[in-house]
């Protein structure tokens, strides 16, 4: 057992064993952040890696991160997806420097060590020396120097990886509810229609909580209420897996009533703010179940969203204790016609760094982080809807946030 494996208590202490109080220092403590990298991201969690479609052909690779750890995901000659650390076994150099590429093998630029697409060390430059001098000693064995591999699993065209040998398989990890929520949204072949990255000036967990927070949506995002898009009476639900870490929330919409409302609004002559062009919100019930918003999370780093007809994967990438990057991968379906594509593009204004109902999430975490600066004693409160992390048939609740902390504490200890 290495020193690192010794069971030490995390530096942040919890006020109780309950889930509804969160110590502020959990967002500010650098040692806590370091321990999260070990225990969560390199621990028994399935992290989102990439879309299977990004590495469609043998030889395709993408460079990504699991927590802050650099990882390569590659499609091998046999068609299988492999993931391994982006760190040369020789001197620790970064092997893949750009975001994606295509190669027969992966060669380190520093000393020319080469690996196949499964991370096996296949070549060592000058292994036998030069002119009979130098070279590796006879006890050096290439097969002992492979790149550390991650276990890989694919679901709905999303590729996940884990450093942990023992964590349950992906679908068990997600639980049947969340697997169902994922399959509902990604129910047919899809492709990328856009990408962007948002730099969030806050701890990664503030964003992880934000997407599980059904309480804030109609308050912080006043676009919804101003333009009467969000009806507080809309039926909805919060669905949380047994571990607490994974969830999806849903809100339904009476599409026909909204359409009638728009038509009525055009006849009204009151001075209320009105949209000049309603196409930004004009949605089509493409799943035929009236669900207009579904936000799904996978602990620790992925969000799958359906906001009306915008479909996106969001990847949460911790960069420092007070800095996070949020990657947005916007999707369209292969069977979209031009009208549907245009609809998705127009509704795209709702989400992302400039999104009418997402922009505020970019700054509010930073405001929390700033408020906690050298003022991080005490705890925040997440008691809306009770103290546990059970699924609920209403949304005025912080149950999914409590689920996050249930999972977090199970993995982190403390």
């Amino acid at each position, binding site marked *: 057992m290495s020193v690192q494996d010794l069971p030490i208590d995390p530096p942040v202490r919890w006020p109780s064993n309950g889930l509804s109080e969160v110590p502020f220092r959990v967002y500010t403590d650098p040692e806590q952040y370091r321990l999260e990298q070990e225990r969560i991201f390199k621990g028994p969690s399935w992290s989102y890696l990439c879309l299977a479609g990004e590495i469609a052909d043998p030889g395709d690779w993408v460079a990504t991160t699991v927590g802050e750890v650099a990882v390569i995901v590659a499609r091998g000659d046999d068609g299988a997806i492999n993931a391994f650390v982006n760190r040369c076994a020789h001197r620790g150099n970064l092997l893949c420097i750009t975001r994606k590429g295509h190669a027969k093998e992966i060669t380190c630029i520093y000393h020319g060590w080469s690996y196949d697409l499964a991370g096996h060390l296949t070549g060592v430059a000058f292994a036998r020396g030069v002119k009979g001098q130098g070279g590796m000693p006879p006890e050096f064995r290439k097969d002992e120097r492979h790149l550390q591999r991650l276990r890989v699993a694919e679901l709905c065209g999303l590729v996940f990886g884990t450093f942990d040998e023992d964590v349950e398989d992906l679908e068990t990890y997600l639980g049947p509810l969340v697997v169902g929520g994922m399959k509902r949204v990604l129910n047919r072949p899809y492709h990328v229609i856009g990408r962007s990255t948002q*730099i*969030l000036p806050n701890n990664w967990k503030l964003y992880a909580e934000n997407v599980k927070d059904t309480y804030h949506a109609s308050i912080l995002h*006043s676009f919804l209420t101003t333009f009467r898009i969000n009806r507080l009476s809309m039926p909805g639900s919060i669905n949380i897996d047994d571990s607490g870490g994974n969830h999806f929330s849903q809100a339904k919409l009476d599409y026909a009533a909204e359409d009638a409302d728009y038509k009525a609004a055009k006849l009204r002559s009151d001075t209320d703010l009105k949209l*000049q062009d309603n196409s930004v919100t004009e949605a089509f019930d493409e799943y035929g179940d009236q669900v207009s918003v579904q936000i799904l999370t996978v602990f620790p780093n992925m969000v799958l969203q359906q906001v009306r007809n915008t479909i996106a994967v969001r990847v949460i990438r911790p960069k420092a204790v007070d800095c996070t990057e949020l990657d947005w991968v916007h999707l369209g379906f292969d069977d979209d016609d031009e009208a549907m594509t245009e609809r998705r593009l127009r509704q795209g204004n709702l989400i992302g*760094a400039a999104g009418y109902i997402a922009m505020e999430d970019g700054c*509010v975490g930073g405001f929390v982080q700033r408020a906690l600066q050298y003022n991080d004693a005490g705890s925040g409160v997440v008691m809306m809807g009770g103290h546990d992390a059970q699924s609920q048939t209403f949304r005025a609740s912080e149950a999914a946030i409590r689920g996050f902390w249930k999972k977090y504490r199970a993995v982190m200890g403390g």
Partner: protein
Amino acid sequence: MADDKVRLGIHELIAAYSDCIDDDRLEEWPDFFVEDCRYLITDRESHREGLRHGVIYCASRGMLIDRVTSTRRVLMYEPHRYRHIVGPVRVGAMTDGTAEATSNFIAVRIMHDGETGIFATGRYLDRIDVRSEPYRFIERVVVLDSRKIDTLLAIPL
């Protein structure tokens, strides 16, 4: 090839556009566009790959007006403004009263507390209606050099 008068008009339009945003006269911003316009903020890599989604995607002047209304009266963000520095404008092909133009820009963001930094750099790809004055954008594609946006993008570029 556009004549000098048209060229000058295009230069004026592009300079006036940045002044409008930087002077916080956002209400006038939609008037720089024709009714049936397109305004897109994308990034270099997405643009090269032909990805059509934009951080902002407006396909009518009405959508621009909604952006302004939302920015002014609805959205919550920390007060800030931009200073655009637009480089030399190159006027390209002209067909049927539509001129193409390109220019490079730096947008500096000045926060309410004075914190100042480069927010975005990129390239404007414009198609401009020059049939009558005032000239207006038919299309303005803002191609950012970087895919990373710090915190949020509330004010148009």
